C-alpha cells in the first residue's frame, strides 16, 4: 500500500466537502461563500503541509503513485500515434509501448515503459519491468527512428529490469547492453523524459539521450531503495534510509548534470492534475525538439558523447605532472 494514499485521504475528504457545499450553495437563499472560501483556504494549507516538501522516500512513492500519468497517458496526448509491435523474433513485450507519432510540427518515434494502472494491467505488463524482448523491441524502434530519420522520444517509468528466470535465459544483460549501444550511437536527435520511477539499468536502456527531462517528483536511481538497502544492509525495510542516501530526486540529478531539465508538477503531484501535467510535459518535449533540430547531426553526436563523457566524480592524484 502506497503511504501517500493514506495521507491523501484527509485532502480527498476536504475536497468532497467543498464540492458538496458548492453544489448545495447553488440556487440557495443562504449564501455559504464565506464557509466555502474558508474551507478552500484550509485545503490549500493542508496541501502545502502534506506535499510542500517531500522526502526522497516520499518522492519514490509519488513516482509510484497508482494514479500518476503513465506512458500511455502522454501518448494519448500526442497529435497522432501509430503503434508498432514486437522484437521481430520472439514476443511483443507489453511492458514497452512504441510507435510513430506526431507532436505539433514534429514527426517522431515514441517509446515508453508502461506499468499497469491497476493490478490486472500490472500483471499483463509485468509492472512495467521489461523482458529482454522488450529491450529488443525498443532497440528495433530506435533503429527505425534512424531509418526514417525522425527524432526519438522515450518515456521512462520502470522499477527496473525483470528479475525472472526467463529474462536471464534470454540474455537480459546482452539486451540492455545492446540497447545502450544503439541509443548512444543513434543518428537522430533523442530526448528522454523520466515520468515516474527510473529504475537502474532497466531505465537506462531507454534513457541515453541528447536531453534528459525529469518530472519534479520522479525518481531515477542506480537501484531501487529496497534493493539498495538489501544489498548494503541485508534489510529491504531500510529503504527510506537508502532513498535518502541515493540522491535519486530530480533536483539531485540536475545538480550532477545527469538530468538536463526538471519539469515542475502541480502541488500534490502529477496525478492531482494529470491533464495539465501531460500538456506541460508535451509542451516541453516540443520545445526541446525545436532546439535539438537547430543542431547539425555531427554537433549533436559530439555533444551527446561529451555529455556522458563528463559524468562521474573522481580526483586525479597525478594531474599536476600531466599524467593521463
Amino acid at each position: 500500500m502506497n503511504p501517500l494514499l493514506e495521507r491523501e485521504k484527509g485532502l480527498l475528504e476536504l475536497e468532497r466537502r467543498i464540492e458538496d457545499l458548492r453544489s448545495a450553495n447553488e440556487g440557495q437563499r443562504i449564501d455559504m461563500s464565506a464557509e466555502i472560501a474558508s474551507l478552500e483556504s484550509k485545503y490549500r494549507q493542508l496541501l502545502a503541509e502534506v506535499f510542500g516538501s517531500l522526502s526522497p522516500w516520499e518522492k519514490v512513492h509519488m513516482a509510484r503513485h497508482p494514479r500518476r500519468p503513465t506512458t500511455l497517458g502522454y501518448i494519448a496526448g500526442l497529435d497522432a500515434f501509430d503503434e508498432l509491435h514486437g522484437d521481430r523474433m520472439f514476443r511483443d513485450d507489453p511492458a514497452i509501448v512504441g510507435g510513430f507519432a506526431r507532436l505539433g510540427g514534429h514527426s517522431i518515434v515514441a517509446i515508453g515503459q508502461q506499468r499497469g494502472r491497476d493490478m490486472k494491467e500490472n500483471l499483463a505488463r509485468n509492472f512495467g519491468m521489461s523482458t529482454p524482448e522488450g529491450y529488443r523491441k525498443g532497440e528495433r524502434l530506435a533503429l527505425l527512428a534512424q531509418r526514417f530519420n525522425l527524432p526519438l522520444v522515450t518515456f521512462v517509468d520502470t522499477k527496473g529490469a525483470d528479475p525472472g528466470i526467463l529474462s536471464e535465459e534470454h540474455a537480459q544483460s546482452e539486451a540492455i547492453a545492446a540497447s545502450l549501444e544503439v541509443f548512444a550511437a543513434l543518428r537522430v536527435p533523442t530526448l528522454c523524459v523520466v515520468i515516474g520511477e527510473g529504475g537502474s539499468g532497466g531505465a537506462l536502456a531507454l534513457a541515453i539521450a541528447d536531453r534528459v527531462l525529469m518530472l519534479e517528483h520522479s525518481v531515477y536511481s542506480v537501484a531501487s531503495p529496497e534493493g539498495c538497502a538489501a544489498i548494503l544492509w541485508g534489510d529491504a525495510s531500510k529503504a527510506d534510509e537508502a532513498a535518502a542516501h541515493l540522491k535519486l530526486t530530480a533536483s539531485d540529478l540536475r545538480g550532477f548534470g545527469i538530468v538536463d531539465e526538471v519539469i515542475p508538477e502541480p502541488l500534490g503531484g502529477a496525478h492531482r492534475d494529470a491533464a495539465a501535467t501531460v500538456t506541460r510535459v508535451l509542451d516541453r518535449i516540443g520545445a526541446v525538439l525545436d532546439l535539438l533540430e537547430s543542431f547539425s547531426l555531427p554537433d549533436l553526436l559530439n555533444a551527446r558523447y561529451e555529455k556522458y563523457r563528463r559524468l562521474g566524480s573522481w580526483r586525479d592524484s597525478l594531474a599536476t605532472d600531466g599524467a593521463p
Partner: protein
Amino acid sequence: MPMADWLRGGRNREKVRDDAAQWVKCPSCGEVLYRPDLSANLDVCVRCSHHFRMHAHDRILSLIDGDFEEIARGILPADPLSWTDKKSYPQKLAADAAKSGMDEAVLCGFGSIGGYELALGVMDFHFRGGTMGSVVGERLTRLIEAATERGLPCAIFTASGGARMEEGMLALMQMAKTTAAVVRLKASGQPFLTVLTDPTTGGVSASFAFQADVILAERNAMIGFAGRRVIEQTIRQRLPDRFQTAEFLLERGHIDGVVDRPNLKPTLERLLGYARAGMQRRKRAELSA
C-alpha cells in the same frame, strides 16, 4: 615501467602477500593448497581445476609478454554523495585498498600478448566487489579512447557485483559513458574483446561486458544481470546450480566460448592474430585505393 617495479609500485602487493595465510582450502574439492603453489598455477586448483578469483596484478602478469604501461592510475575515487552508513565511503575504500592492494576495482594499460599490442583492462573483485563507480568508468573510458586513438584492439576482463551503490546515479552513468566509448572504438574498426570472470553481474554485465565482438568466459564463472538471490526471492524457489554459470550461458548462446584459465593467453593470442590480419587487409586496401 618494468613489470617488476610496477607490481610493487605503491600498491603494497608484497605486504598483502606476506600477511596472507599461506594455506587455502579449495571451496570446490576441499583440497588444502599452498598459496605460492596456487599462485604459480594461475590460481587454479591442481586437484579439481577450480578457478579462484584472480587479483588484477596477477592476471596482467599471467597475460602480458613484457612490460605493462599503466594508464589513468592517478584517477582515484571521490565521495560525490558524501555517503555514510556504518562506515563512510572513504573509510570503506581505504579498508579495501589495504586488504586488496588495489586503489580501485580496475587496472588499465597497454602491453603485448604473444607479440600483439593491445589495450587491456582488468577488473578486480577484491576491491569493493568489483563494483563500477566513477573511477572504474573513467579509467575504462580512457583505456577505450586510447585504444581508439592508437589504433589497437581492446580487451577487458570483467569481475563485478554491478554498480557501486555509494556513488548512486553517477555509478549507473558509467554504463552510458563506457558504452559511448565502445561505440567509437568499434566505429574506428578496432575489435573489442571481453573475458567474463567470476562473477560478472549487474551494470557491468549489462554494458561493456556484453558489447564485445567476441565474449569469452572463464570456466564456471557466475554471469548474469539480476543476482541469484534476487531472482530466488522473486520467484520463491531455489535455482538450479548451473543457472547463470558460464557453461549455462554457452548452451543458451549468450557467449562465444568457455575457456580454462591456462588456455586464456593462447586463445587471446589467436584472436589478436585474427584482428591483426584484418587490420593488415585494411591497410593494404587503403594503400591500393
